[in-house]
């Protein structure tokens, strides 16, 4: 009796562990079974490098959206990473203990704010400001990049701070003994020592920026055309799905699923590079 109970429980736990594997397989199955035929019908080249997205005219080129995601993500990294890494340096090496007790929860609060609230903030404050300073509608690559830069800030700060604290103290002390000041020791010894950990944080932030949807929709303008200026609107892969899924049918719908499949592959690449960086750190 007891023996049977033990084996049933063991099987149940094993099943629970493999639930995540089944889920990933199921998600893959649904995305690719629906997406790949659509890509084949449109033509892989026409789908990936086509610059026109006009479902009404049978044109399904997602190049504008891929570039849109790329630009906004790059912009977010340019905006968020330097600020994030320097804030992490502050928290790890310059911050008095008492201030840290306020700053840490503040950063995790920033991480917990829902993306609609970020988007709303961007829409109500950043978009008018950008309109005032740069003209146009204010919904642009620049606005979206800055907002996403803020959104990835907590990820970059948390991971980088942990990486900085993981660098052996003897490195820092050695640098001081060689005549470095506190600042130069931190920047030229500790920071390079924490490089791969910081890189991991940047990659995590990249994943978040590529996948972000609601905040981007509210501030990026969403025009499905090739972006030609920092101050013009752009549509990301994620936005494309949300904006049109509600009414799309047939090939249009499948093209959107194919967009999600591309996004899935994109993020898989990000995850793989993250595990490579993580593993290199451990060896």
């Amino acid at each position, binding site marked *: 009796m*007891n023996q049977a109970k*033990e084996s049933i*429980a063991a099987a149940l736990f*094993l099943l*629970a*562990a*493999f639930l*995540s594997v089944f*889920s*990933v397989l*199921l*998600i893959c199955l649904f*995305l690719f079974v*629906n997406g790949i035929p659509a890509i084949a019908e449109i033509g892989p080249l026409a789908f990936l490098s086509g610059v026109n997205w006009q479902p009404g005219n049978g044109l399904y080129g997602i190049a504008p959206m891929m570039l849109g995601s790329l630009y906004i993500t790059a912009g977010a990294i340019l905006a968020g990473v330097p*600020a*994030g*890494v*320097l*804030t992490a*340096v*502050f*928290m790890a090496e*310059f911050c008095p203990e008492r201030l840290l007790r306020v*700053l840490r929860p503040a*950063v995790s609060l*920033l991480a*917990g*704010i*829902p*993306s*609609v*609230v*970020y*988007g*709303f*903030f961007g*829409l*109500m404050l950043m978009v008018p400001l950008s309109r005032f300073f740069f003209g146009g509608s204010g919904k642009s690559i620049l606005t979206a990049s800055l907002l996403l830069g*803020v959104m990835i*800030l907590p990820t970059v700060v948390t991971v980088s701070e942990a990486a900085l604290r993981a660098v052996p103290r003897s490195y820092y002390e050695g640098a001081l003994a060689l005549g470095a*000041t506190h*600042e*130069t020791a931190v920047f030229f010894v500790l920071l390079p020592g924490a490089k791969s950990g910081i890189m991991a944080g940047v990659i995590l932030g990249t*994943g978040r920026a*590529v996948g*972000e*949807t*609601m905040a981007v929709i*509210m501030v990026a303008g969403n025009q499905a055309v090739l972006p030609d200026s920092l101050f013009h609107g752009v549509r990301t892969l*994620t936005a494309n*799905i*949300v904006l049109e*899924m*509600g009414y799309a049918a047939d090939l249009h719908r499948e093209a959107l*699923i194919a967009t999600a499949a591309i*996004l*899935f592959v994109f*993020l*898989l690449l990000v995850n793989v590079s993250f*595990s490579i960086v993580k593993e290199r750190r451990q060896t």
Partner: protein
Amino acid sequence: MRKQISLLLRALVFAAALFTAFILLLLVGYILVKGIPHLTPALFAWTYDSKNVSLTPALFNTAFLIALALLLAAPAGIFAAVYMTEYARRGSRLLYPVRLAAETLAGLPSIVYGLFGALFFVGSLKWGYSLLAGACTLALMVLPLIMRTSEEALLSVPGIWREGSFGLGAGRLRTVFSVVLPAAAPGISAGVILGAGRIAGETAALIFTAGTAAKIPESVFSSTRTLSVHMYTLASEGLYLDQAYATAVVLLLLVLAINICAALLAKKMTEERNG
């Protein structure tokens, strides 16, 4: 020269920290200042209609959705963690695909979950836009989070406790349920509550699974609108911006309260271990 470089670096670091603090204060301050004056009783009226965009139904829907999604995800995630820490042998080959899958799930953007939910739960299983479809979708989304935090909590239970339990003649199952899980409970609950926070803040995965009906659901197959989705609808329609600010305040406070609970539990866990 050396002194100037040091000063410059110091200035950079302080400027960045000030910038981060400023952004946080600006964001929270702006929402609070613009939103709090519009927290009127009408906003909390029992029903929503197009004249009075009450958030009460959305608040209830959020609670229902969190409860249902966690009911599905928490046991699965905790059991998976039990398997990984208590049952699998160290370096077992079965663990590799599980970890890989959990990491992949954790990295997927919410819109991919939303699309999958729309295809599978709403489409193939014919549930339609429903509370159940939304809950299942979000359960998948928070599963890796619950798995990871539970695993960490279980790993932090000292091995000697398990040995003591085995020594007293308890079986594996009894050890897990009477010794290991109770000891890890604060850490596990912290993870589950973090999951609740993510569910409360989620929008993209819900629009095409749970739908946007702004009323209290009659059954798990009714379409529902959570607070985040409600907030998005108000903001994108642009007709009730004052109410949107007030809704943002409520959403912010809700998520803040959830995160504080999680942090307190996590703190309790580390204090018990160290004390």
